[in-house]
């Protein structure tokens, strides 16, 4: 139940953010320009599709007492498990399907008889959770600390730099594995671990950009106008950081999705019962040794991963171009 509530809250928050963004001329203009490019629309459609799947996989309820909770996605794709693997487009063997659309395993089944298409779709929510939640928590921290360090300088700068330099001096993958050992496996734990290791790069970037913007004449002009530091930071410097932050955050998002896959592959990511692309790829590794080669498992998970990351990068890039007035061609 709590899961449903959280999902709804997140959706509402996202809706509000988009609505408010569209009301400011800066973002409205950016979106208007993005709509003109077919490639961006394609990437947007893919993202929308993935988002819908993630939402469908987030709402769950049980049919009665002592019954397992099932998400909308589970209910749509509910089918008995096969006894063994089968190639793509294989017919259902267990029984006649109640739903004609589900009579074939479009992408086949994996070594233990799970439908690959269904498993791939289950990985979407995990990817969004890992990428989205981590980015959402990292972004405010990195922005705040980076801007404070860059704008205030002196002691504040030294302190913040010291903290992230220390963090950064530990090899990332070792720190991640160590943290996962301490926190235990799980999606929230992985978000925390990834958050701790991934804010440094963004923070450093924001600090450098702030340093650059701080010495621009428009900041001096704003100060000459009598504006205070909070307003200059939020209203003048932050929008000028946005292009670089957005591109970095979307790239970061896709990097996080990839990191999840790698960590799950190494066995320290999300638990095995949580559907994730990393887990699928890890499972496929063993199956690759079989004769005949079971490749559809690996290919499905990798393609889904690739599509999401590519779409994110295209949209992020377009957003960056759209938001920067200097890059706009009239």
């Amino acid at each position, binding site marked *: 139940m709590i899961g449903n509530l959280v999902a709804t809250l997140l959706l509402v928050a996202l809706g509000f953010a988009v609505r408010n963004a569209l009301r400011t*001329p*800066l973002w409205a203009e950016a979106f208007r320009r993005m709509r003109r490019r077919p490639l961006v629309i394609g990437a947007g459609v893919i993202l929308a599709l993935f988002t819908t799947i993630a939402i469908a996989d987030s709402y769950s309820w049980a049919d009665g007492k002592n019954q397992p909770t099932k998400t909308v996605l589970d209910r749509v794709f509910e089918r008995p498990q096969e006894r063994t693997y089968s190639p793509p487009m294989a017919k259902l063997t267990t029984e006649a399907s109640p739903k004609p659309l589900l009579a074939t395993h479009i992408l086949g089944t994996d070594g233990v008889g799970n439908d690959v298409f269904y498993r791939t779709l289950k990985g979407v929510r995990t990817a969004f959770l890992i990428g989205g939640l981590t980015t959402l928590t990292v972004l405010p921290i990195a922005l705040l600390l980076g801007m404070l360090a860059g704008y205030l*300088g*002196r002691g504040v700068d030294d302190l913040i730099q010291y903290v992230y330099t220390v963090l950064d001096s530990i090899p990332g993958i070792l720190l991640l594995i160590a943290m996962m050992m301490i926190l235990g496996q799980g999606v929230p734990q992985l978000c925390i671990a990834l958050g701790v290791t991934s804010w440094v790069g963004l923070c450093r970037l924001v600090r450098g950009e702030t340093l650059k913007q701080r*010495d*621009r*004449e*428009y900041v*001096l*002009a*704003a*100060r*000459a*106008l*009598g*504006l*205070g530091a909070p307003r200059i930071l939020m*209203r*003048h410097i932050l*929008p*000028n950081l*946005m292009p670089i932050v957005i591109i970095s955050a979307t790239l970061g998002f896709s990097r996080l999705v990839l990191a999840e896959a790698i960590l799950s592959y190494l066995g320290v990511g999300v638990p095995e019962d949580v559907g994730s692309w990393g887990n699928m790829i890890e499972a496929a590794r063993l199956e690759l040794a079989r004769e005949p080669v079971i490749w559809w498992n690996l290919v499905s998970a990798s393609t889904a991963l690739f599509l999401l990351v590519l779409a994110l990068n295209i949209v992020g890039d377009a957003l960056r171009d759209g*938001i*920067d*007035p*200097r890059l706009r061609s*009239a």
Partner: protein
Amino acid sequence: MSEETLLSVRDLRTYLDTPEGVVKAVDGVGFDVRAGRTLALVGESGSGKSMTALSIMQLLPEPAARIVEGSVKLDGRDLLDLTAKQMRELRGKRMGMIFQEPMTSLNPTFTVGYQLLEALKCHGGARRSGLGQEAVKLLQEVEIREPEAVLRKYPHELSGGMRQRVMIAIALANRPSLLIADEPTTALDVTIQAQILRLIKRLQGEHNMGVLLITHDLGVVNETADDVAVMYLGQIVEQGPVDAVLSAPAHPYTQALFASRASREHRGRVLPVIPGNVPGPHDWPPACRFHPRCPFRMDVCEKVTPEVSHLPDRTVRCHFVSPLEEEAKLEH
């Protein structure tokens, strides 16, 4: 027109801490700006003009620069005694500033309208209604045609002259009584320069503003200023009404500066230059700072720092001129 003293700077010293040592960027500068009048601060690059302006606004690049001593009185109140918050309230409201580079002094991510409204709201507090009209009025005041269309534009869609007009509109949004213009026309075309200067002059007359005009262009001084202060290496070497100083410069540096100006007399001849270069900030000469380049150099110039001599129509910092002060006193 009232000619009360608006801004009074006395013995201002602003030092810069650099890895190579302390640079006395502003070293004992003093002048008055009267309401409705323009004081031009003239000097070469590195003479401390901009540092003086930033010291007045207290917008110095921290932590390198610091005001060591002196007083900066606006309407009789010493700005150096104010807290950061009090100072912030004065900026924009009592004293506005425009900058050399209209290209970069507007925020590229916002429309002109947004930035004008921000300036209006900044000190206006709650009065929100009618701000749009006020913005249009401000743009009309700086002679921008089709102000409604310009309000919706981004800075990069405007020409340099238009941007400077917008900057002036923003600086004047809260009707400051003092306008500091730091080389407002340097980055503009010559034809636009004249327009902008005329605009500043007109607005000054309408609002009885005191203007501190920082420039290195003596032509600009001649056209727009009432008084002039010539700076060399952090000090004011000569100061007085424009007519007096320009017609008969007393300090050897001012004379040399004027002689090296391109004019009709020099047609077909080599333009005179001041011998030597402006010394770097770390090897300023002792005593009189101009003595290595001065044609009237005397022994005393290398040993004793000249005091400021008060002549009837001006002040000059030069050993060569100081005997004249005695004569002037005797005549009285």
